[in-house]
């Protein structure tokens, strides 16, 4: 994207750079938390899961830091135009990333229960889904750092793939539970894990929308949704 001229007041640029750095760190931490929570889930490693739950506090602290910084910039600099849009967007993005972290933490929590039950076949889709979600977050943060509206817009379509994974896992788990009532507990937890990943995909997409708005001042057109499971009665 276009290079921006520096502000006359240099410390303003430093403040914005610092805010961007906090957001980038939060994004990186989210990627790690998701990838590791799914690893812990699949490898049935309860110790690793505990570490992930602990690490979520770092995301909470970073979010608080981003908020304090954004509030300070608004109070001291009275930002306008693209500066204003970026700072307001960064404030919102920090909140969304914190929420994404909560979903990863929730996956880690469930992995402890799942580790105590029999392995469930359809779970193999989970790591695939997680890989895709992590990729979307990484690309979204790249679009944020590069201030690239084209990249941000392209990301809005990617969430459909996550929805498709979720739909197929939803059906597979429903079938699995009907056939094997003993597996209802781990399957239900896995369903929540999949739902968490699906929600993460939605949140990452909303971050991409914020990046697009921050750079262009326009809202992107309505994005397509492909998660139809809320209307499914039986897995036919």
């Amino acid at each position: 994207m276009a290079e921006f001229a520096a502000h006359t007041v240099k410390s303003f640029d430093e403040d914005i750079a610092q805010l961007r750095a906090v957001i980038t760190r939060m994004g990186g931490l989210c990627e790690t938390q998701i990838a590791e929570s799914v690893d812990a889930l699949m490898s049935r490693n309860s110790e690793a899961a505990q570490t992930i739950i602990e690490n979520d506090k770092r995301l909470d602290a970073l979010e608080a830091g981003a908020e304090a910084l954004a509030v300070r910039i608004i109070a001291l600099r009275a930002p306008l135009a693209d500066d204003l849009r970026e700072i307001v967007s960064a404030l919102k993005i920090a909140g969304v990333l914190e929420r994404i972290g909560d979903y990863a933490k929730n996956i880690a929590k469930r992995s402890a229960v799942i580790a105590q039950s029999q392995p469930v076949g359809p779970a193999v889709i989970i790591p695939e889904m997680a890989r895709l979600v992590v990729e979307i977050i990484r690309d979204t943060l790249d679009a944020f750092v590069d201030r690239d509206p084209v990249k941000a817009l392209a990301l809005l379509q990617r969430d459909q793939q996550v929805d498709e994974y979720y739909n197929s896992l939803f059906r597979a788990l429903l079938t699995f539970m009907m056939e094997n009532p003993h597996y209802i507990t781990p399957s239900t937890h896995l369903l929540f894990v999949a739902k968490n990943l699906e929600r993460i995909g939605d949140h990452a997409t909303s971050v991409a929308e914020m990046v697009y708005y921050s750079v262009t001042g326009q809202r992107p057109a309505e994005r397509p949704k492909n998660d139809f499971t809320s209307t499914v009665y039986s897995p036919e």
Partner: protein
Amino acid sequence: MNQNPAIGHNTVPKMTARDVNVFYGQKQAIKNVSIDVSAEHVTAFIGPSGCGKSTFLRCLNRMNDTVDGARVEGRIELDGQDVYASGMDVVQLRARVGMVFQKPNPFPKSIYENVAYGPRLHGLARSKTDMDEIVESALKRAGLWDEAKDRLNESGTAMSGGQQQRLCIARAIAVDPEVILMDEPCSALDPIATARIEELIDELRGRYAIVIVTHNMQQAARVSQKTAFFHLGTLVEYDDTSAIFTNPKATRTKDYITGRYG
């Protein structure tokens, strides 16, 4: 189809300027500016020092006539009437298009006389009672009545800076103008006095067409509905204030309002 974004907003303009050029001697201060000023909005002129915003403002009531070597080309109309027509009575024009300046400049007279001066000059009052009413109503509209009513015979220059500026606004509105031009009306005032003037501008909106020149971006954002950005004598961008401050179209506008200029 109108090419110029400064022209062609839906409301009937109070004042229109077309292809205005202003020269100070050899130096051109304003280059081909065309703009409409609506009676329903407060219009803010912003831009860096020397961009021509004050020069252009002063064209609207021919204040540049008093500047040696100043020459104005183009057409400026008030309700469709050519402001620079040879038969135009400039004193009448300035009664219709009043002005408030950067530094409060009350006459060295009583508060009452400051406000009564214009109406008397223009023969607006037939009796002392008439004049008393005009003075009271102008001071009330300027938000100064409660502070001034018990000291109408004291000197205007004895008031605080903020009060003096509101007195100047009362003086401007006493002759019942149609347009009020304000050139940096708050730059010599403290934040409280500034807030009172801003509140006053908001109250006067709709009754008068108001054009305000300000260096304070936040002030332009707070008080105006339309904002015009001037740079190097040209009108760069003219749009709704909210659009100018959240999503300006021109890079020069954006660089200026975000503090990247120069």
